[in-house]
C-alpha cells in the first residue's frame, strides 16, 4: 500500500508539472524561445537625457562590420532599439515587425540600429529566424553591456532594458523611451517619437 501510494503520488505530481505544456502541443518555433516569466518592468537608472549628446560607441554587427554612432553624424538621424536578450518572447516579436516599418523611418531620414548584449553567433542564429532585416544588428557583448551601461539601461542581471533612443544628425538625443521589459513598444510610440528630430 505504501509503495502504491508513493507511486501514485509521483505520477500525479508529474502530471501537475506536465499538463500546462503538453496541453498546448509541440511547436518548433515556440520551443526555441526561452520564457523568463514576468520581470521587474525597469531595473536601471538612465545616465543620459534629452538634449544631451549621445554617447558614441563602436560595436560589431552581425554582418561583420563595426558600426559607430559617429558614422552617422551630419548624415542621418538614428534610432537605437535596445532589446533585452535573444531567444526571449517579446524581443523575438519586436524586430520582425520593423521589417514592414522601413518607410516610416525613411520618411524621417532615420536609420535604425538594433542592439542587444548577446554575442554575434547568438545574434546570427536568432535574427536568421526573423527573415531579412533591413537594419544592422549590433552586439554589445564585450566589454559586456558597455554601451547599454553608458546610456544607463544595463539591468542588474546583465541584460538591457527594452529601450529606444532617438538621436538627430547633430548627435543630440531628442527622445528616450524605456518600455516595461515585459511589453513591446507600440508602433505609434515610435512614429510619434520620429517627429522629435
Amino acid at each position, binding site marked *: 500500500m505504501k509503495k502504491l501510494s508513493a507511486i501514485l503520488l509521483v505520477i500525479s505530481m508529474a502530471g501537475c508539472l506536465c499538463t500546462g505544456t503538453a*496541453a498546448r502541443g509541440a*511547436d518548433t518555433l515556440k520551443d526555441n524561445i526561452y520564457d523568463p516569466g514576468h520581470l521587474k518592468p525597469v531595473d536601471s537608472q538612465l545616465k543620459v537625457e534629452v538634449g544631451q549628446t549621445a554617447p558614441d560607441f563602436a560595436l560589431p554587427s552581425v554582418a561583420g562590420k563595426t558600426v559607430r554612432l559617429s558614422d552617422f553624424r551630419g548624415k542621418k538621424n538614428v534610432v537605437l532599439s535596445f532589446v533585452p536578450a535573444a531567444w526571449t518572447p517579446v524581443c523575438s*516579436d519586436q524586430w520582425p515587425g520593423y521589417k514592414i516599418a522601413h518607410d516610416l523611418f525613411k520618411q524621417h531620414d532615420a536609420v535604425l540600429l538594433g542592439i542587444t548584449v548577446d554575442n554575434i553567433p547568438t545574434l546570427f542564429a536568432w535574427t536568421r529566424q526573423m527573415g531579412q532585416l533591413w537594419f544592422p544588428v549590433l552586439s554589445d557583448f564585450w566589454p559586456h553591456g558597455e554601451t547599454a551601461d553608458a546610456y544607463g539601461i544595463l539591468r542588474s542581471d546583465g541584460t538591457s532594458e527594452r529601450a529606444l533612443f532617438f538621436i538627430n544628425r547633430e548627435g543630440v538625443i531628442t527622445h528616450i523611451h524605456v518600455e516595461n521589459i515585459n511589453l513591446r513598444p507600440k508602433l505609434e510610440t515610435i512614429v510619434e517619437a520620429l517627429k522629435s528630430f
Partner: protein
Amino acid sequence: MIHRYLHIFLFSLILLLASVTASHSQETPKAGEKFPPVTLPAPDNPAHREYLGLPEDGGETFSLSDIRAPVIIVEIFSMYCPHCQREAPALNKFYERLERTGGLRDKVKLIGIGAGNSAYEVEHFRKTYDIPFPLFPDGDFSIHKKVGEVRTPYFFGLKKTATGTVDVFFSELGGAKDAAEVLDELLKVAGLEEK
C-alpha cells in the same frame, strides 16, 4: 503512515485536477467545440460593415454570431509575425476567390484579429499589404487569451448554429505550410465546393 501518504496523494490529485481545469479554460478550441464569445468593434469602413452584414446603425460592437454568413474564417495574426507578413498576399488572393465565386460569396466571410496589435498597428499592416477584408485589433491580447494564446497565423473555421452559438469545424496553425493550402483544406472540411 499510509494515511499520511493518502493525504499527500489526494492533495496532489486536487492540484492535478485544478491544473487540468485551468489549462482547459485557456485551451485552443478544436473542431467540434464551441468558439468562445468574442466581441469586436464595429468597423468604421461602410464597405466592411456591408461585407459582414452589420446594420449601418448597429452600435459600436458586434459578436461573431452577428455576421451574416453561415461560415466565418478567423485568422489570428500579428503585424510583428514574419509568417503573417509572408502570407498576407495569399490571404488577399483567397479573399478575392471567395468574393468572385458565386457559391462562396454569401456563405463565407473572412476576418483577421491582430493579437497584441493596437488599432494603429493593424492599420499599418492593412496598408502595407492592401488587405481588403476586415481586420480588428486585440491590443490587450484578451481574444488571444480566450483562444489559448495560439501562435500566428492561426486559422479557425467557424459555423453558426441555429441556437446562436458559433462552433469550430477547423482549427489549425499556419506558417509551416502555405496559407492557401490550409484554407483549401478548411473549405473542403466545410463541404463548400466552388461553383
